């Protein structure tokens, strides 16, 4: 679970925080929306990859 969290943070930071700036309320909201969706999608991707991979190797 620690590695999944680290990877998610790394990928979503790269996608949602392109220009690191001081925290601003307007861009702040766009960022949290992006991070929240990115978290859900990365978990979904992880589950999809697990399913396909396990189906192949077993």
């Amino acid at each position: 679970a620690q590695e999944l969290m680290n990877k998610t943070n790394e990928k979503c930071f790269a996608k949602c925080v392109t220009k690191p700036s001081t925290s601003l309320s307007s861009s702040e909201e766009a960022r949290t929306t992006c991070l929240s969706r990115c978290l859900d999608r990365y978990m979904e991707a992880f589950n999809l990859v697990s399913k396909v991979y396990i189906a192949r190797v077993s």
Partner: protein
Amino acid sequence: QAQARLHQSIHTFTSMCWDKCITGTPSTRFSRSEESCLANCVDRFLDTSLFMVKQIEHQREQARYQ
């Protein structure tokens, strides 16, 4: 230990296929093409690994009979 290696592979594949298939901003769901890209990415990577192993064995065979 086989369990740990399996988990490590899943992390590696998720990371690699995410970078290859998810190029836009994350949305509320995957598009159809993103989803099939992710699934195909895993399958094609496993095909690649198998192909490489066979290719190396093939070259060894050839080298032996020369």
